[in-house]
């Protein structure tokens, strides 16, 4: 038996979560005394895959089929099931991002595996196999036992520290045996977000709520985000108003994120908003209302006007970074 980890790429480059996954799978395999193998789907060159060797991955199976970039849910699930069979894996680990959420349930059925999504950290116990995950949109945690022999886990982004462990990586060609007919997702247009830090990858997130008053006031938030190398987010009414894109909406009905640092500017801190951000390690809140519930979730708070505070943050951040 072994552990298989699905390493995604974006235009041939490994993502940040890939290294978190490599670290996680390496540690998980150690705790179970099993070998670990990585699987990569799509065109990624060997030097890029070799980077996984910094995080304990000594063997990578690589299927170069270009069609994986259509992100066809079923085809990717079939390929992963083939890779699991080939490497005799009983546990498959992948990211809890859009692709992981789409593929993992399909894979779980194929493998007759119990699935746990958005797992936090290593198993609480391996015998029986119990993992911890957030439930009720961050309001609680559950200990979930996976009873089946096969298991599929998705790891919440930014929830597992990178652990360096240098090994020699061997890349092995792999062919899952899929033909063009297996890829049925017809893409008409792709809109890539370029030059921006993706919200889910971001270690720091700068977020604004209705207290920002209007779309044109986001310039200062973006300035602060740029200086700090942060992603940008917003509350639901802000994206509903069209001030910011839907992809930035965090909370119960938006994205659930867990950055190291979350700035909330002019956000009241409704329970549905907190559900998406309360796992952040540090929360900074700026709100003119001292009674705003966001201060109950925050670590540092300023009762004041966002438009007075933002320029001071920007100045101080510039100084810190210079």
């Amino acid at each position: 038996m072994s552990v298989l980890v699905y390493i995604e790429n974006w235009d041939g480059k490994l993502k940040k979560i890939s290294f978190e996954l490599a670290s996680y799978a390496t540690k998980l395999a150690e705790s179970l005394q099993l070998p670990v193998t990585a699987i990569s789907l799509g065109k990624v060159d060997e030097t890029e895959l070799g980077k996984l060797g910094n995080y304990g991955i000594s063997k990578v199976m690589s299927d170069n089929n270009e069609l994986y970039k259509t992100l066809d849910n079923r085809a990717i699930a079939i390929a992963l099931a083939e890779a699991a069979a080939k490497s005799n894996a009983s546990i498959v680990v992948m990211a809890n991002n859009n692709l992981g959420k789409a593929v993992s349930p399909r894979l779980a059925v194929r493998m007759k595996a119990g699935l746990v999504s958005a797992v936090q950290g290593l198993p609480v116990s391996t015998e029986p196999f119990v993992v911890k995950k957030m439930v009720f949109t961050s309001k609680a945690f559950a200990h979930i036992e996976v009873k089946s022999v096969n298991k599929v886990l998705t790891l919440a982004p930014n929830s597992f520290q990178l652990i360096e462990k240098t090994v020699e990586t061997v890349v092995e060609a792999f062919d899952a045996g899929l033909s063009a007919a297996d890829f049925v997702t017809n893409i008409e247009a792709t809109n890539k977000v370029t030059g921006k830090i993706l919200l889910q990858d971001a270690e720091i997130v700068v977020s604004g709520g209705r207290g920002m008053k209007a779309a044109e006031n986001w310039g200062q938030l973006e300035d602060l985000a740029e200086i700090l190398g942060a992603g940008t987010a917003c509350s639901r009414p802000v994206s509903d108003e069209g001030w910011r894109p839907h992809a930035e909406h965090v909370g119960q009905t938006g994205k659930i994120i867990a950055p190291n640092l979350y700035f909330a500017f002019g956000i009241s801190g409704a329970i549905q908003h907190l559900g998406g951000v309360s796992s952040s390690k540090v929360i900074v809140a700026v709100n003119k209302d001292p009674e705003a519930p966001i201060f109950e979730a925050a670590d540092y708070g300023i009762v004041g006007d966002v438009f007075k505070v933002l320029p001071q943050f920007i100045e101080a951040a510039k100084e810190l970074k210079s």
Partner: protein
Amino acid sequence: MKILVLIGNVPDTTTKIKFNADNTAFDASGVQWIINPWDELALTRAMELKEAHAGKIDSIVVANVGRAITEGTLRKALAVGADEAIRIDADPLDAFYVARQLAEVAKDYELVLAGIEAADYNGAAVGGMLAELLDRKSVSAVSGIDIDNDALKISREIDGGSQTLKMDLPLLAVVQKGIAKEPRIPAMRGIMMARKKPLNVIAPVEAEALTAYNSFELPAPKAACKMIDEEQAAEVIRLLHEEAKVL
């Protein structure tokens, strides 16, 4: 075309979450149940499609795996406009178990809509599992759906952007935010009509659960927030650097 919308029954989003004395089960006393927010949007979009493409959609059916307690939620879905409801009478043991039950009814529908995750256990699993059990195409993180002749025009979010797709039927779409603007609220007339619509209760099939919820815990209470004066805002940046060490 017939559309099936999966309906999760979840505690109202403002519910204070509590567990039983030994923390092994959710304490549902006093809980208000609602349609899972994404399922509510999915149903809303299904209704919009039916209205916009007269004659193309024959019926919209909603389905839930749950005990009698979920009937209020199903009645609400009927009041919003679904033509018929199906309740598979079983405890929703885990995602695989639920998907196995739904597979029995879903095969007759060209389009099945599931939500991206249920607001209770946040499994993000049932939709994809059902698609695999039906051996059917699926698209996830769907933020827009429209009928385009005999096919569907779909927008989906991907990690790092968004895409528009053209997909044939049959299809299972796992939907998220953006699919409809605001959930539809039942009108008085809808509530009256819902009472007469069929709510069929069917027996479950034999299936196993692959996971079990052993115990629950609430997050540790947060330490008090450190307050800084508005005029001294720069101090926060210093503290984030020197004290919290996150900058």
